[in-house]
């Protein structure tokens, strides 16, 4: 209750594992409703890129919250690297700090901070808005600023909750490439929540589908990179995933 920026009391160092994300038997329920997460198991190897799909309200954000240490683990066991970065579903920028200050928040970069922020803002296409107040950003701009804030940290484990939802096709492509680039360079573990099956197939090593609180589909994506939509296996994987999501790929 009383600690800012301190992990929940029940976080202890895990010696048996070196940087992987492990979730075992995680159950989460709100008040006395049915469990949102129900004895869920998930492992993400270091450097692995996992896409998390699932119906609206299936518990994706809840899982991310638990993994970021914001919710207590009451049933089950969770272990993850210490250096994480999270892009939440909402941008969560501090409205009283200019965009560039938000980017390097908590970074002890000294004078270089401003420059570093400028660079990464340039990368997400917000170079011209660095001095703006967050409340004046458009929906997509805030989402990109939140992304920039996560990327600048180069974490061991990156969690992204629908980070491209408010972006137009072109900007979305650019941002996907940016995340892919960071991942390639840095080989961090990534958990990407997305509703876009194509996005999952383009970026991830593995796509998992959350349903009724459990991982019902765990689909490896053995495509070479760079990936292309017209790869014949792409269409196949696509229909498997859409099927798992309850959409029949006939229209």
């Amino acid at each position: 209750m009383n600690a800012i920026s301190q992990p929940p009391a029940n976080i202890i160092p895990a010696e048996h594992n070196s940087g992987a994300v492990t979730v075992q038997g995680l159950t989460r329920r709100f008040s006395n409703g049915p469990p949102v997460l129900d004895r869920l198991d998930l492992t993400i190897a270091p450097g692995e890129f996992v896409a998390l799909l699932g119906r609206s309200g299936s518990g994706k954000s809840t899982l991310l919250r638990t993994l970021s240490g914001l919710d207590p683990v009451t049933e089950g066991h969770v272990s993850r690297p210490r250096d994480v970065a999270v892009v939440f579903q909402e941008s969560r920028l501090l409205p009283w700090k200019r965009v560039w200050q938000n980017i390097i928040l908590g970074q002890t970069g000294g004078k270089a901070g401003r420059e570093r922020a400028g660079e990464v803002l340039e990368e997400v296409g917000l170079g011209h808005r660095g001095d703006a107040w967050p409340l004046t950003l458009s929906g997509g701009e805030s989402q990109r600023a939140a992304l920039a804030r996560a990327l600048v940290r180069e974490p061991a484990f990156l969690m992204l909750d629908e980070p491209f939802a408010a972006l137009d096709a072109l900007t979305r492509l650019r941002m996907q490439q940016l995340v892919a680039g960071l991942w390639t360079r840095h080989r961090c573990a990534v958990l990407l929540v997305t509703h876009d099956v194509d996005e999952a197939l383009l970026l991830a090593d593995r796509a998992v589908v959350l349903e009724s609180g459990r991982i019902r589909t765990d689909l490896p994506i053995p495509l070479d990179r760079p990936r292309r939509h017209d790869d014949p296996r792409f269409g196949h994987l696509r229909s498997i995933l859409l099927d798992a999501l309850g959409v029949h790929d006939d229209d």
Partner: protein
Amino acid sequence: MSETTLRHTVHTARPVLTMKPHAKFQLRGWHTLRRYLSPVVLLLIWQIACSTGLLSTRLVASPTQIISTGWSLIHDGTLPVNLGVSLLRAVSGLSIALVAGIGLALIAGLSRTGEDIVDAPLQIMRTLPVLALVPLFILWFGIGETPKILLVALGSTFPVYLNLHKGIRSIDPKLLEMARTLGLSRGQTIRDVILPGALPDLLIGVRFAVGISWLMLVVAEQVNADSGIGHMMMDAEDFLRTDIILVGLFIYGLLGLVSDQIVRMLENRLLAWRPAQHRKGQPV
């Protein structure tokens, strides 16, 4: 993340955190009790200081002495009568203050012209020492109950006004815009958006107002009063009856606790919409 954790994991290539389930037991009553632990501890220290002679009981009565004085005051009816009279005055004054404060805050918060008319005079009056205003009140309202109740009302209007006004000004403009596009009427917007949105601020204002209403009685009940808690205090002060003063202080303290508890209950009920983990205390 804490340094300790880092130290423990220094031998692994990548520091890792593991979250294990923790038992979530929380006795509901226990928390409420815990809040009142520190006042009780302070009382105990006071009593001990008096008993051991660290604090001269000639200058400051000990809690047990205060309780015995209090008991005799209850017994001979002084205390209940005075409390009752003051309660009536406080409640009447507070009611006026609530109506006036909320009304003025709405006027100032909802229209710029309203703010121009209302805000400056209130900001000026807010700082006037009531003691100096008492003769004016006698002039205008005589020496009966009216000036007493109005003094209470005057003092407690300001916190209600100031906090609610601020609360209205800091309501998320997005919600107000939404109300506008939905075509909500002025009344509906006030009822459904503005007052609920500014409620936490209003509650702080009311909290202050309750405290101030009792403080005002100390001033108001100097005017032709032969009963009331403020009268009792001033009387004791004039006759240097420190034990009665301390009984009075005790009652004021108790009042603080009770009003605090009431506002907390109100908060818990009225702010039930905040997700459970954020409601009590601070979530961080």
